[in-house]
């Protein structure tokens, strides 16, 4: 680990000011950042520890829904009775990721900001434009079994590793950003940027801005949800493919549907064209199959990750079937 200045701050203003120092990063739980620093993939000149900020509350919003402070620990969010009851898809997604020890330490904001598990990015030596702009992508002609098939570019096909964020995308979560003059909220799907030819630019976060909360809109009565994740071993492993499904039901009719995919895309991936097919529909296996086909239409697989396209279709089909059978309590 390279030397760094360590700042323990007490106010948001202080944190916001210090993050504008060249090479400064925010430290919350640290489960990803400390690993990145030990690998010397990230070598911050200054570490701004924000854990004393009062951002660890889960509150109801006046408009309905919930506001989750960015320093809420992943375990506390997943086991929160209201979250388990109102947003089971979010609890399921969080509990399917990492390990209990990591979830006890990792925060919501940190989960949003975690870096990719691309082995070329993490090895510190291979050409990688995300790590060293302009050096190219080693996965392009290298081994890319774990890489994305959606949203990729010639410069990067690294997947976003989070499970939590896939559920947040299906829930239309809003990211609350503070630190500049204007506090603002950004939909999670717009918070993450496509790699295009600038894969080192990962989020819409601007200098001086800090994630202070995540807002969850209220789900109508009768909404049914499911998070389904497939991986190389049954626990403590990143997704090969995952799907978060949120179906708003009226009687036995789907009114609205939201589907987000993980493990196969460069960011938590929504599929609006596929979702539209389910609006005002009667659930059926045939419809779900068409929906799954549509969701993967834009996929650009390579030789090692071609299997993910068929796998993703099956995961979507299965997740939709499971969700439509799950009545909200």
């Amino acid at each position: 680990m390279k030397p760094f200045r360590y700042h323990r701050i007490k106010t948001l203003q202080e944190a916001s000011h210090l993050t504008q120092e060249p090479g400064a990063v925010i430290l919350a739980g640290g489960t990803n950042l400390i690993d990145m620093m030990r690998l010397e993939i990230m070598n911050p000149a200054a570490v701004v520890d924000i854990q004393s900020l009062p951002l660890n509350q889960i509150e109801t919003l006046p408009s309905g829904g919930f506001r989750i402070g960015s320093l809420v620990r992943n375990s506390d969010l997943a086991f929160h009775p209201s979250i388990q009851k109102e947003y089971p898809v979010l609890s399921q997604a969080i509990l399917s990721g990492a390990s209990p020890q990591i979830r006890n330490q990792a925060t919501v904001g940190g989960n949003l900001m975690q870096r990719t598990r691309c082995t070329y990015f993490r090895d510190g030596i291979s050409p990688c434009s995300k790590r060293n702009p302009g050096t190219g992508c080693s996965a392009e002609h290298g081994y890319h079994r774990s890489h994305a098939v959606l949203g990729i570019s010639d410069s990067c096909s690294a997947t976003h590793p989070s499970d939590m964020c896939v559920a947040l995308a299906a829930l239309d979560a809003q990211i609350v950003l503070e630190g500049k003059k204007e506090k603002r909220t950004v939909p999670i799907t717009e918070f993450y940027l496509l790699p295009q030819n600038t894969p080192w630019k990962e989020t819409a976060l601007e200098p001086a801005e800090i994630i202070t909360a995540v807002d969850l809109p209220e789900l109508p009565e009768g909404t049914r949800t499911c998070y389904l994740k497939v991986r190389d071993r049954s626990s403590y492993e990143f997704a090969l493919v995952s799907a978060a499904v949120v179906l708003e039901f009226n009687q036995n009719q789907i009114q609205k549907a939201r589907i987000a995919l993980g493990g196969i895309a460069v960011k938590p991936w929504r599929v609006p064209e596929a979702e539209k097919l389910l609006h005002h529909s009667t659930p059926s296996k045939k419809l779900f199959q068409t929906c799954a086909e549509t969701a993967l239409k834009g996929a650009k697989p390579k030789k090692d990750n071609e299997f993910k396209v068929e796998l993703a279709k099956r995961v979507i089909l299965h997740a939709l079937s499971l969700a439509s059978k799950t009545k909200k309590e």
Partner: protein
Amino acid sequence: MELTVTLEINEKKHVLTLDSRTTLLDLLREELHLTGTKKGCDHGQCGTCTILLDGKRVNSCLILAASADQKSITTIEGLSSSNSLHPLQKAFISHDALQCGYCTPGQILSAAGFLNEPWERTTEGIKEGMSGNLCRCGAYPNILTAVQEVLENQKLLNPQKASHS
């Protein structure tokens, strides 16, 4: 950069001057010679370095000592009290829940954390709840039995708490 941190480790207060890069794991092992906490992968992938931080199980390799200032830590050296082994330690011995023993302190601290978390008290719940700790010898069946036994005893002693899950 050097800085000062105050930690309560196994109920004893320590005021330490450290390099900002020091992790809790390296602090425990290298500075305080509490070598019961083991270093495995040093990347949060094996669970061998598990400790309790303010009562919650965490990987000590992924936490800077600086960011644990004013917090309390329990390691395997501090788990038992007044010369009597912790029920988990006894259960691990009686069920032979180890072979080489390298992962054992982490397994036991992880199980201690697990007992206070709202997991389903089922075989599957224990397996998933203990999935953050790898055992290269493959002593998993006996680890599971040991944790199950402690849970059973806990239920008898404190049925209300056990039914919380």
